[in-house]
């Protein structure tokens, strides 16, 4: 490894300032030795703009930051879309929010940019001001046209028949077989990252809890770890253990809901009803443990506050119940037929797209931030994914496997398996990174704190940002009536994706 990583700026994190033309060389080197792009963020330092690339290495838990300052006169970066697909998406996001142009990007279309924003208005810039009135629509939204005998299009959404978030899906179909799917998202930009700016770090918690309603713990924890990293706040070992427990409790109630919903989507209502019962039990337990059914309010920078310890016997019963439901589902020949082989995402595709979480594990990738970027030691041992076919069945069964694993891990944590080493002393570099395995996958937050102690920039990356492009890839050659099932097996966040 011939790279010089630059200066140590935080927990296992080094940073280096480089010029735009050095970028490709550095990134190539990092990707070659197994680093993965975790986050790319634009910054407006008023006198100039700055792009920050954060790479993480799974085995060593090293984090490397590349800072690329950009003069106001030349707000351009060489596009790295050819090296890494996720970086290409981050570049488009940066262009839409900051006006930093990725030169020679292979797909220079807007990504997060709202249809009605006036041209040349970049909401994350310091001088952007209040959101303008919606202007003229910014040109037609180009959908790829598929031509041929019998090909027709099915537009769905953004308003749906069920209670789900807004997304528009354009299917090009022959008969019932999907030839091409374009998911048009980004209807709900809330300016969340901007809302963080100017708040004190403890005031950011309430925002972090609401980034994605079902991931309150994941995002709050990533945010708090980032703040603690930036200010070198040490967290008592017991508090870190409680955080690990809360993270698993969140995984439990979400995975149970998904298991039920997947059964419901193939019309097997009775298993959905029972999954609903189990989820309600879990939510009530959550309320006893934290005072909030979705586990808000427990995690703060530097501390974790639980009202009661989780009942491990109760959780063991839940795990058995869920295993029974999952068993009944896959033993049902029709359910198995609907799940098995449907919408396969190969390991190669998953790796190329940088997919995270259970979607990645169901395709055979093993990345898990609980193991690779741990905040309790010893970390969760790496277990080989139990099902790696990449189809709906694997994504269904892997959730059951993770529920079993979570319950065992909570028991182990509460029994003192983690030997509760004291927190490593770090440096207060006023920038911090938090990486947490939320229930959907690895969440990354990066914060910068100004001299006056307020947040000057918070960048949030939900795993959905990485996983959304995998959905259309998996759906090729799947039939239209299976789409809701496949979509649920991915269960990606719209809110966490469109900040």
């Amino acid at each position, binding site marked *: 490894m011939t790279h010089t990583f630059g200066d140590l700026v935080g927990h296992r994190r080094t940073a280096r300032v480089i010029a735009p033309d050095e970028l490709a060389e550095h990134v190539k080197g990092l990707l070659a030795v197994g680093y993965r792009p975790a986050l790319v963020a634009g910054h407006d330092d008023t006198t100039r703009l700055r792009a920050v690339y954060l790479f993480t290495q799974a085995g060593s838990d090293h984090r490397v930051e590349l800072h690329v300052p950009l003069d106001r006169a030349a707000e351009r970066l060489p596009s790295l879309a050819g090296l890494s697909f996720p970086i290409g998406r981050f570049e488009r996001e940066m262009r839409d929010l900051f006006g930093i142009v990725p030169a020679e990007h292979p797909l220079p279309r807007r990504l997060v940019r709202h249809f009605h924003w006036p041209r040349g208005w970049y909401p994350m810039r310091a001088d952007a001001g209040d959101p303008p009135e919606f202007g003229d629509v910014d040109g037609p939204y180009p959908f790829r046209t598929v031509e041929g005998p019998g090909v*027709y299009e099915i*537009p769905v959404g953004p308003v749906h028949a069920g209670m789900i978030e807004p997304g528009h899906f354009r299917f090009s179909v022959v008969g019932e077989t999907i030839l091409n799917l374009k998911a048009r998202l980004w209807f709900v930009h809330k300016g969340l990252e901007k809302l963080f700016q100017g708040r004190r770090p403890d005031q950011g918690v309430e925002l972090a809890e609401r980034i994605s309603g079902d991931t309150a713990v994941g995002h709050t924890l990533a945010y708090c770890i980032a703040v603690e990293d930036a200010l070198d706040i040490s967290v008592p070992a017991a508090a870190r253990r409680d955080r690990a427990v809360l993270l698993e409790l969140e995984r439990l109630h979400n995975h149970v809901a998904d298991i039920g919903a997947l059964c419901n*989507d193939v019309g*097997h*209502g009775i298993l959905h*009803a029972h999954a609903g019962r189990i989820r309600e039990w879990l939510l009530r337990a959550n309320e006893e443990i934290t005072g909030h059914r979705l586990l808000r309010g427990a995690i703060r920078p530097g501390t974790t506050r639980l009202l009661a310890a989780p009942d491990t016997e109760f959780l063991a019963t839940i795990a058995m119940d869920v295993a029974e439901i999952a068993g009944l589902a896959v033993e049902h020949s*029709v359910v198995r*037929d609907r799940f098995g082989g449907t919408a396969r995402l190969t390991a190669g595709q998953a790796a190329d797209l940088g997919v995270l979480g259970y979607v990645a594990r169901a395709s055979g990738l093993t990345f898990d931030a609980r193991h690779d970027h741990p905040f309790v030691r010893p970390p969760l041992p790496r277990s080989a994914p139990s099902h790696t076919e990449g189809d709906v069945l694997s994504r269904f069964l892997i959730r059951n496997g993770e529920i079993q694993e979570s319950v065992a891990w909570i028991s182990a944590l509460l029994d003192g398996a983690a030997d509760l080493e004291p927190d490593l002393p770090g440096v207060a570099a006023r920038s911090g990174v938090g990486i947490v395995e939320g229930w959907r996958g690895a969440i990354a937050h990066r914060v910068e704190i100004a001299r006056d102690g307020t947040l000057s920039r918070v960048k949030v990356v939900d795993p959905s940002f990485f996983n959304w492009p995998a959905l259309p890839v998996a759906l090729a050659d799947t039939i239209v009536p299976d789409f809701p099932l496949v979509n649920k097996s991915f269960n990606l966040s719209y809110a966490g994706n469109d900040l």
Partner: protein
Amino acid sequence: MSALGIVGGVVQPLAVVAGSPVLVGMMRQVRARLEGRAGPGIAQPWRDLRKLFGKEPIAPRGTGVVFRAAPYALVATTLVVSFVAPLATVDSPLDPVADLFAVVALLTAGTVALALAGLDTGTAFGGMGASREMTIVALVEPTLLVAVFALSVPVGSTNLAAIVSSTLRDPARAISPASLLAAVALVIVIVAETGRLPVDNPSTHLELTMVHEAMVLEYAGPDLALVELASAMRLGVFLALLANLFVPWGIATTAGPFAVLGGVLALAVKVVVLGLALAVGEVFLAKLRLFRVPELLAGSFLLALLAVAASFFLA
């Protein structure tokens, strides 16, 4: 036209209209209870209908007369069937219409009207639902005809009343091989025709998986109420026909008030028992992949063919 026929012509449509939504309510309630849910009660479909009938009629822009006429066509065809078919009384006010082919054609006409309405909306879902419904109907109708034909062979008439009366006279016919094979085939096609699991999921909210619901997505207010009522009536009529073709006992054979009352009660009991059996069965079922539906329906067609063969060779 006999007195019994006239009485039947008045009583049967009333019973079907009033009772069908209750039947649907009972089926939903049973399913809810079996799944551990409280359920909305058996009167919920009627409450929904009352609410929908009280709304202003709205038709989407660009739809034409086909879209507006389809709910009436659907209700009308089902009403005619409930008027003529031997449901509560053996005699029919319009005996020639109580014919196997006429009844199946009437019920299919309603389905076609709805599919045309789905196409008339010009939306992707209407077209998609219509296309799927036609795929299913094309497989269902032959089975329906062949299965009932198997029953008509021993009787020597395709008149439904004649088939029912003949079974009443000769009860052994109800458990003949032909009859049993035809019964199984008919159960499958009725499940498909009325959009129940495992062919269609009547309670789904996922637009892309719908068959029947996709065709009627654009309906609102009184039109939707008519479509919902007609769907319930079709389910009731199909179950009543199924019951009377194989277990006709209790059907009124004279025009006396007690006989007619007994006929209506027997009809209600038979339909409720069948409906509840269907609802209980659905708890254990999941929805088939769309491309597996033809396999199921091909199987039922084979059973119907065997029934015809059996009715010739084993009679």
